[in-house]
């Protein structure tokens, strides 16, 4: 099946019961499939008037207690930035799939790209935490969709699943697990009486329990800075703790959130750090290099945000050179450079709609 189909099955397996979206290549298969599959499991699908409304409807449905998903590509993802910020500010769980295509603007709808990496991190205004997962294969598209829902519910945060056109449209054989056996995380419900409930109160985990609308806990949600009861505030002693807490709730759980695949040895002086479809080219290049007895390691980032700072820092202590292939002009490379130092990083870039080839990466590996 396609990566996009695997995302749809992953959503069903994770307990998704609501999808709102707007047609856009190359993500449309997800909407088409969920319009067919969701009613079968009692879930609901709606095609909204645009991507702004799509994510708004998802947040509304999540407030009503449904695990919600939307899927889009670059132009639609640009429109969704407003509500990614709203979900981060209000701490409402929601999952957003962005199947990247070549940009900017309408760009090239059917061509591959990894040009949205920085937009997933900083596309919406203001400081906010975000989790972005990036699958390399079709089976990983299923697994990471489930993870995306689980992180979203567990940490009350929007989670972005960042595919590229290659992974979204590529067909591979996969073994789907029994859906009942898939680990599902539910949002933490509150057990206090309604008059004690603080929707944004302190909790030991920094993730306050979330009451769904209509279940006896009447409270206020706003995109303004708010106090522990959810009411708008301009007080510094209420704004500061909020911004600290929402960042802390992600930072203290990096061990849980940072998903990474390492194929490394102590002797690897060259290491390829990569993600998404570029990891497929890199895998081939590393194999060819090793056949020629070149010592080369590989790190694949499945979680690209928050950036795997500790892990890349460890790699940088061993490796003399870090090669970062990407289908853009160097976005995640900026982060690798920040952690490893600019003189260690070799960028391999292509931003014309075609994949970075194994040959391009191999040349970089051998070019010493």
């Amino acid at each position: 099946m396609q990566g996009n189909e695997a995302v749809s099955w992953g959503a069903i397996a994770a307990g998704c019961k609501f999808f709102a979206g707007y047609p856009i290549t190359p993500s449309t298969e997800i909407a088409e499939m969920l319009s067919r599959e969701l009613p079968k499991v009692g879930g609901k699908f709606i095609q909204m008037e645009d991507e702004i409304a799509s994510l708004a409807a998802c947040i509304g449905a999540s407030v009503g207690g449904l695990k919600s998903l939307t899927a889009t590509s670059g132009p639609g993802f640009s429109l969704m930035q407003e509500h990614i910020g709203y979900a981060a500010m209000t701490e409402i769980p929601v999952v957003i799939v962005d199947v990247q295509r070549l940009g900017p603007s309408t760009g090239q709808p059917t061509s591959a790209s990894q040009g949205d990496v920085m937009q997933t991190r900083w596309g919406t205004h203001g400081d906010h935490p975000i989790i972005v997962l990036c699958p390399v294969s079709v089976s990983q598209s299923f697994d990471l969709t489930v993870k995306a829902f689980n992180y979203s519910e567990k940490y009350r945060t929007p989670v972005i699943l960042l595919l590229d056109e290659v992974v979204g449209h590529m067909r591979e054989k996969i073994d789907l697990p029994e859906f009942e056996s898939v680990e599902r995380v539910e949002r933490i419900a509150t057990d206090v009486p309604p008059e004690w409930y603080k929707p944004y109160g302190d909790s030991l985990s920094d993730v306050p329990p979330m009451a769904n609308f209509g279940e006896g806990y009447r409270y206020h949600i706003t995109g303004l800075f708010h106090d522990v009861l959810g009411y708008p505030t301009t007080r510094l002693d209420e704004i500061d703790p909020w911004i600290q807490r929402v960042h802390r709730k992600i930072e203290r759980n990096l061990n849980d959130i940072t998903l990474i695949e390492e194929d490394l040895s102590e002797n690897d002086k060259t290491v390829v750090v990569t993600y998404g479809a570029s990891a497929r080219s890199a895998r081939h290049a590393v194999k060819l290099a090793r056949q020629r007895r070149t010592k080369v390691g590989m790190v694949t980032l499945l979680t690209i945000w928050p950036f795997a700072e500790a892990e890349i820092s460890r790699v940088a202590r061993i490796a003399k050179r870090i090669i970062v292939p990407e289908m853009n002009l160097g976005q995640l490379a900026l982060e690798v450079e920040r952690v490893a130092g600019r003189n260690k990083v070799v960028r391999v870039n292509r931003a014309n709609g075609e994949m970075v080839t194994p040959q391009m990466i191999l040349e970089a590996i051998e070019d010493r």
Partner: protein
Amino acid sequence: MPTQAEHTEYMYLRPTKKFPNVWCAGCGIGIVMGALIRAIDRIGLEKDDVALVSGIGCTGRMPVYMDFNTIHTTHGRALAFATGLKIAKPKMKVITIMGDGDAMAIGGNHFIHAARRNIGIAAIVVNNAIYGMTGGQYSPTTPVGAKAATAPYGNIEPPMPICEVAKAAGATYVARSTVYHAVELDRFIEQAIRKNGFSLVEAVSYCPTTYGRMNKLGTTVDMMRQLKEDSVSMTAAEKLSPEEREKKIVRGVMHDVEKPEYTQLYEELIQRVQQAQPANLVNI
């Protein structure tokens, strides 16, 4: 004078919210808030079964004071959030509260599509013909010739007829009144909430702080009196010439029809699909 406890309105205000409210003295929005509370009280809805969804602007601040499930969303998007919430909780009474700029400019697309779907949401638009919170810029309902912070030489854009747009787009209940006619407003909002489908109430208001000053319309009392003099009921409007009617605010229920409601249609769709094809998921 009734005591606080005897006032219906006080029973629906949040005990934990710090007052006073954000509105200027003399603002009409508070009257709409009172009308909404009286309508909900008259229907006898449980507080837990009501959700208020608002956008951004002076009117968007209304839900925070009221003891329901309340969500203050982004500018223009109240109906899009409300659509998701209504689908998740079809039995809940979902009410959106928007201003004229909020609903008709930035939210115009969501407005016509929510009406087209006939989803069971009651939409209240407080029309004061101006962007008040940002300091009095012209809105899609500012009359031609009126002055605004961004129309210093007079507005040249024709105003948007909110009720006509809602009717054309597919709303099944459409009514207009003013904040002077508070009793009528109570009744229209009550009917809108009872309606099983997309309903719209346009509450014509005024802004003494920005629009009133810039157009030299006098005090709040003067502006209130103007609403009384400028508005006519639908029956009275029929006796006027088209030119005379053009200058008036026509009050009344413009449209009231029955059409299938969206979330009910979707529930039926689910039943139809599940009967025809029991969940045949991969590996399930």
